[in-house]
């Protein structure tokens, strides 16, 4: 048996690696990364969205040789990055409204096309509320017209900017300000919510992917791939919110990781409506491990624990694992 030679100490899991070839390191590992979203922003400590935005936009900046225009929906990201008189953005950035970011991005893309600026690439971005709820009409329109925009949704599973109200991405069982943990069925309803990546796929657009800040290499690869494609592209990025989820700021990465490893947030790619690849779970964990460090699920673990709800959440994870084949062995096709 020949031993597969591994040229790295920590594999492709760390941000950088002095032992890796430069071209295989992440954008985030480079000293000359764009820092598209730079210091001094007013995001909470340990904000997953701030990270996700910098990861994604920096990767896009590298892919487009710095020729990027970003359009932002109203939301946390917009508010914490651009309160007058200071902005944290270092790319041309534009904010119009809560529900129109995809359409505005389409407009910017149309302007670039009209001016023959094919080198300039347009990004639309917003939180889950701005994207999958109030902005969904515009998003769908952008998709079906196949406008040349990469739309990035930073999903923290509720309306955080307004004080943690339920969105179409709030998971079943989660406590929010409008799904309080009181009554017979505490937290968000089971059987509600939507999967925008699957809906995006139904538009038959060239590229759809889910990503997580917990897997930077995967995220950057997806953004890079998306940037090489013309037409409508959608990358849905899971970004834990310490404030809204009731988790410790230092646990943001860990919780993002547990979401992936439990199967609750499957990572996959799709082209023209068909799933083309999934990122396998590395070390599967029961959903309890993901739920427990978050106060929004604390009511599930009171004495006696709400085993029925926890099992229902586990069933969701198991269904994802089965549906996407997340426990694929390495080397298996």
């Amino acid at each position: 048996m020949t031993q597969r030679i591994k040229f790295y100490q920590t594999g492709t899991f760390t941000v950088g690696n002095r032992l890796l070839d430069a071209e295989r390191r992440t954008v985030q590992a480079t000293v000359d990364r764009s820092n598209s979203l730079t210091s001094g922003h007013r995001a909470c400590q340990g904000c997953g969205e701030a990270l996700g935005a910098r990861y994604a936009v920096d990767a896009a900046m590298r892919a487009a040789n710095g020729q990027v225009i970003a359009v932002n929906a109203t939301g946390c990201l917009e508010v914490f990055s651009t309160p007058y008189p200071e902005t944290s953005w270092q790319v041309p950035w534009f904010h119009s409204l809560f529900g129109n970011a995809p359409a505005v991005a389409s407009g910017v893309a149309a302007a670039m096309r009209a001016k023959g600026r094919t080198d300039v690439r347009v990004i639309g971005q917003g939180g889950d509320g701005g994207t999958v709820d109030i902005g969904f009409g515009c998003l769908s329109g952008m998709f079906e017209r196949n406008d040349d925009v990469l739309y990035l949704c930073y999903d923290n599973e509720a309306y955080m900017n307004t004080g943690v109200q339920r969105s179409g991405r709030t998971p079943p069982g989660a406590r929010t300000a409008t799904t309080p943990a009181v009554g017979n069925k505490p937290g968000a309803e089971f059987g509600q919510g939507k999967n925008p990546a699957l809906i995006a796929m139904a538009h038959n657009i060239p590229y759809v992917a889910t990503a997580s800040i917990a897997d930077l290499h995967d995220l950057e690869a997806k953004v890079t791939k998306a940037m090489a494609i013309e037409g409508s592209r959608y990358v849905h990025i899971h970004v834990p919110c310490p404030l809204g989820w009731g988790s410790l700021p230092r646990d943001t990465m860990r919780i993002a990781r547990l979401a992936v490893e439990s199967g609750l947030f499957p990572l996959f790619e799709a082209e023209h409506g068909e799933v083309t690849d999934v990122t396998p779970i590395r070390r599967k964990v029961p959903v309890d491990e993901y739920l427990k460090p978050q106060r929004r699920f604390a009511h599930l673990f009171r004495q006696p624990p709400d085993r029925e709800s926890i099992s229902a959440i586990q069933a969701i994870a198991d269904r994802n694992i089965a549906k996407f084949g997340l426990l694929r062995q390495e080397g298996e096709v």
Partner: protein
Amino acid sequence: MLQQIEGSQAIAQAVALCRPEVICAYPITPQTHIVEGLSEIVREGRIGNCQFLNVESEFAALSVAIGASAAGARAYTATSSQGLLFMAEAVYNAAGLGLPIVMTIGNRAIGAPINIWNDHSDSMSMRDSGWVQLYAETNQEAADLHFQAFRLAEELSMPVMVCVDGFILTHAYEQVDVPSQAEVDAYLPPFEPVQVLDPADPVSIGAMVGPEAFFEVRYLAHHKQLQALEMIPRLAGAFARAFGRESGGLVVPYRTEGAKTVIVALGSVVGTIKDTIDEMRAEGTEIGAVKLATFRPFPLAELRAALIEAERVVVLEKALAAGLGGIAASNVRMALRGLSTPVYTVIAGLGGRVIPTTSLKRAFAEAHADRIDDPHFLDLDWKVIDKELARAKERRRSGPIAENILRGLGLVGQKLF
């Protein structure tokens, strides 16, 4: 070149001559023919690299225009009625961001009850959004105002609505002089935005502004309107010199010399009013009219000057501020503040109700004699009103008013309660 042409087609040709770079469209009657015309012109490749986007809503239409404009493209869209209300948030946003978008409003009533015919309820609802509002009297003016609108918008970096009466103008075939591309190019220089999204010179546009600066931003928007007040007559003058005809401007008097009664109105109804005035003048009545070609910014001084000699003023308008009366009338009173000149309000033509010369003549005569009620509802069928009010008084659960009225008029299949 003179053409016998539908108003919408004239507007489409005029817009095309302005070399827009991004056009976004969502269908709503009665503006549809404009964007249909433009889609054809764009498809034929007659506006260079212009992008025509069929969007999913009016909200998206204006949002696409916002994005395009922020990126430095000359952007255009058109809408009517419900569509304007559906994009209301973006209407304010475009103005707040100072984006020089030009939008044609095919003026139409607002439901409920749903109604596709003309009045000014839609554009009047957006009068304080920060957009310039120009009102066209004829199809020629409707076309011409677009050249001025783009130039005004881009010089001041603010959005402009060109309000064109639905059906009455949009669907009417008239003779229109459509200028040549060279003439338009000479009048309308290429778009040079004051700020633009550009990777070579990145900025953040659309910051959140708190109490410490919001007020100033708002004042600056008001100041821009005041600047427009100065610029509109200049642009109209330049237009007249370049094209050899009068279009636009702030206020346009008609036979006001020695007029004791002056009618103030906006849009196509001014034509009917002129005919009425001609008749009444012929009969010896000292009456004239002033056309409000620009409603925002509101030309307070110019209007005051035009009305200063009048003994009374009648404002005829196609919108109703429910609970108050006239919208334009209130603004006109503002122009005449301090004077004792009576200002009568005539609400007319709502939902496409025909405004016949005979009715106007009767109302103006009553006003001229200071016998008119205020506000006066022109040709309102009081019998229907009285009957419905009486019925509603009898029965608490009286059902929808609109349907009851139609039933009363025998317009709905009769069925006994």
